[in-house]
């Protein structure tokens, strides 16, 4: 068999350049916004819309090709490997913020309170500072605040995400067993749980900002808390949108027991945000 018919090489990719323009407008606009430019918000909005347009176009094209039976086992393997390594890169991104949290708790706060070689730092710069977690630092940046406890909303959210991991697997079983109804119901439940999680996170943030005086500016505790849970919440939102698309496609009759890479990719991504959450629950909320 000749090679060029063994592997699908697409032609005339017009979406990447659209994506580059959208990304540049979005990020350039954001940068200008941070510098106080007044027109920048518009550029951001346009950039965001261009990116959304690009995703509809690009993914739409790939879905059409997939439904037309363009892809064989070989392309499927490429997609799977690509998604797996993309998720690995995301793992590394979260690892940085977890790493920062550990460094702050294990090294920087003890040193500021005079441990190890930090005696002079403590004596001359931050006299009397004690290392107690959570901390907003020796200058009490952001003022008095309260800690976000683990056993209220966060515990409920843990249950929600773990349950959603079960429902998405149940949906997968349905897909593999060619039970369309089980697939759709499982996905619908997963999407619902996902958005409930995001909603509860928003509620928790509002509680933090309005009642606990816990903000992004509350020293290292506020910084690590909001950056870690914030990036996670963003990823949950993205994952829930991906699953929504899968739900829509399932209802349109896409996917077969043999060919459903997109569903699995979304499910892998969902399990990934699930696992990150467990890390957050243990190290950010609990310990």
């Amino acid at each position, binding site marked *: 068999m000749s090679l060029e018919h063994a592997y699908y090489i697409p032609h005339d990719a017009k979406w990447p350049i659209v994506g580059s323009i959208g990304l540049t407008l979005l990020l350039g606009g954001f940068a200008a916004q941070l510098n106080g430019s007044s027109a920048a918000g518009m550029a951001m909005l346009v950039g965001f819309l261009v990116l959304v347009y690009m995703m509809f176009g690009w993914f739409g094209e790939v879905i059409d090709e997939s439904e037309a039976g363009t892809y064989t086992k070989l392309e499927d393997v490429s997609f799977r490997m690509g998604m797996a*390594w993309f998720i690995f890169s995301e793992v590394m991104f979260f690892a940085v913020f977890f790493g920062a949290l550990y*460094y702050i708790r294990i090294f*920087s706060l003890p040193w500021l309170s005079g441990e190890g070689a930090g005696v002079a730092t403590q004596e001359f710069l931050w006299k009397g500072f004690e290392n107690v977690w959570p901390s907003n630092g020796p*200058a009490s940046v952001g003022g008095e605040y309260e800690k976000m406890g683990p056993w209220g909303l966060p515990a409920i959210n843990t249950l929600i995400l773990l349950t959603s991991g079960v429902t998405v697997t149940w949906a997968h079983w349905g897909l593999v067993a060619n039970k369309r109804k089980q697939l759709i119901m499982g996905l619908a439940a997963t999407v619902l749980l996902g958005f409930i999680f995001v909603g509860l996170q928003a509620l928790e943030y509002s509680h933090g900002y309005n009642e606990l005086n816990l903000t992004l500016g509350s020293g290292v505790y506020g910084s690590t808390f909001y*950056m870690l849970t914030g990036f996670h919440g963003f990823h949950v939102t993205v994952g829930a949108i991906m699953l929504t698309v899968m739900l829509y496609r399932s209802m349109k009759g896409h996917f077969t027991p043999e060919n459903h890479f997109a569903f699995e990719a979304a499910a892998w991504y969902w399990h990934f945000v699930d696992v990150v959450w467990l890390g957050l629950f243990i190290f950010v909320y609990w310990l």
Partner: protein
Amino acid sequence: MATVIDTHDDHHDHGPASGLMRWVTTTNHKDIGTLYLLFSLIMFMVGGAMAMVIRLELFQPGLQFVDPSFFNQMTTVHALVMIFGAVMPAFVGLANWMLPIMVGGPDMALPRMNNWSFWILPFAFAMLLGTFFMDGGAPAGGWTIYPPLVLQGGDGFPFMIFAIHMMGISSVMGAINVIVTILNMRAPGMTLMKMPLFVWTWFITAYLLIAVMPVLAGAVTMLLTDKFFATTFFNAAGGGDPVLFQHIFWFFGHPEVYILILPAFGIVSQIIPTFARKPLFGYSSMVYATSSIAFLSFIVWAHHMFTVGMPLQGELFFMYATMLIAVPTGVKVFNWISTMWKGSMTFETPMLFAIGFVIMFTIGGFSGLMLAIAPADFQYHDTYFVVAHFHYVLVTGAIYAIMASVYYWIPKWTGHMYSEKMGQWHFWISTVSVNVLFFPQHFLGLAGMPRRIPDYSVQFAEFNMWSSIGGFVFGLSQVFFCYIVYKTIKGGEKATDQVWEGAEGLEWTLSSPPPYHSFTEAPEVK
């Protein structure tokens, strides 16, 4: 074009689309490789122009041409442009051109994403270079963008951060494509341990990229929120630590320096056997050495921070771990020399650059070993000794390997032989001038001249003058290189398929230049 069920009938032609849009919408690995390589050459000239400004200012003590703030912008952006704009895209361009051919596949595994990986870069660099025209100018805190200094920059700061984000997205997508291509697109019979070494080194480099580019993204994101959103990751008042940034940055930064050199190892391992007319000595040990270097690169980062104030155990661990890297690197150097041993050698331009690489990269490696000695590093740290060290490994290392690869493969790419006479001139002028440029910087550093300063004490004047003269000649000789490349693209003696007498590998079984779609039938792998 290559669809099983082709829904686009107008795409049955097998040639490239015409006009400018060919380059914008291409999914062909050779077109994208060419784009990467040309982009890299342009950035090499842009970064080189900044280096010329630096050497001009340092030609004599005292302030002559630029103000100190602009000088700092030059050193900062020179480094960012050369690393992210010249060397990395050159390697990705070479990977695009050669990997699918070397493994006997039809193209890169994810061709649309391949296009996007490239087309993010011009936008990212437009954003980075645009900062020169903003209030406060370009970032001037050094390419390592340490807080709190970098947070005191002007309007360019957030643009630089987002430019780095975009470069990171491009690199991660490129790396994913390389891994998937190597794992999934190999011709039947091309087992992993039969792959050419350039493929192996890129395979390992791609893993490094996926692992550390997100780390850089995290680091610059924290810088951004520290400046604009009141977080205190790097501010002791809030319980953070500026040193935390250095740890995160170098956790990215040290694997990054191997990202900049492992593909170079691969290139040299292709070229030396060709011109020694002997198979590579110790193929499997080369693979294992490359993997060991990649592994070690993750546990040595703090040797960039010996003077920052670390516990003694940390200094010792990072010192010994760093020295350990000399073992696999030594294996490689000895393998290259053993390959040449009793070989029937000829010295065409690619071979000259490859041998130049082996010798001068080793000099850079040895000065690296000196820097690895923690107590000695207290004297070398942030001096011109460091500048000399990393320019030996990056210019006479990475850049020399890229030059070698261009001379080696350009007959294959264009179908034309370059002018051997001009190539030899380019090599010798470059090699003499680059040593005049960087060797005296060792002495300057040992004598105590700090890096990143526009002015210096008069006792450093003579070496600096030598260094600047070497710099100007080296810079001009690269303009000459551009001319050689241009001439070769335009015309020249017709290249044969084999090109080099001793060349082995699938790329030499194709015509020069290769057809738009490399292998229409799976090649036979011996």
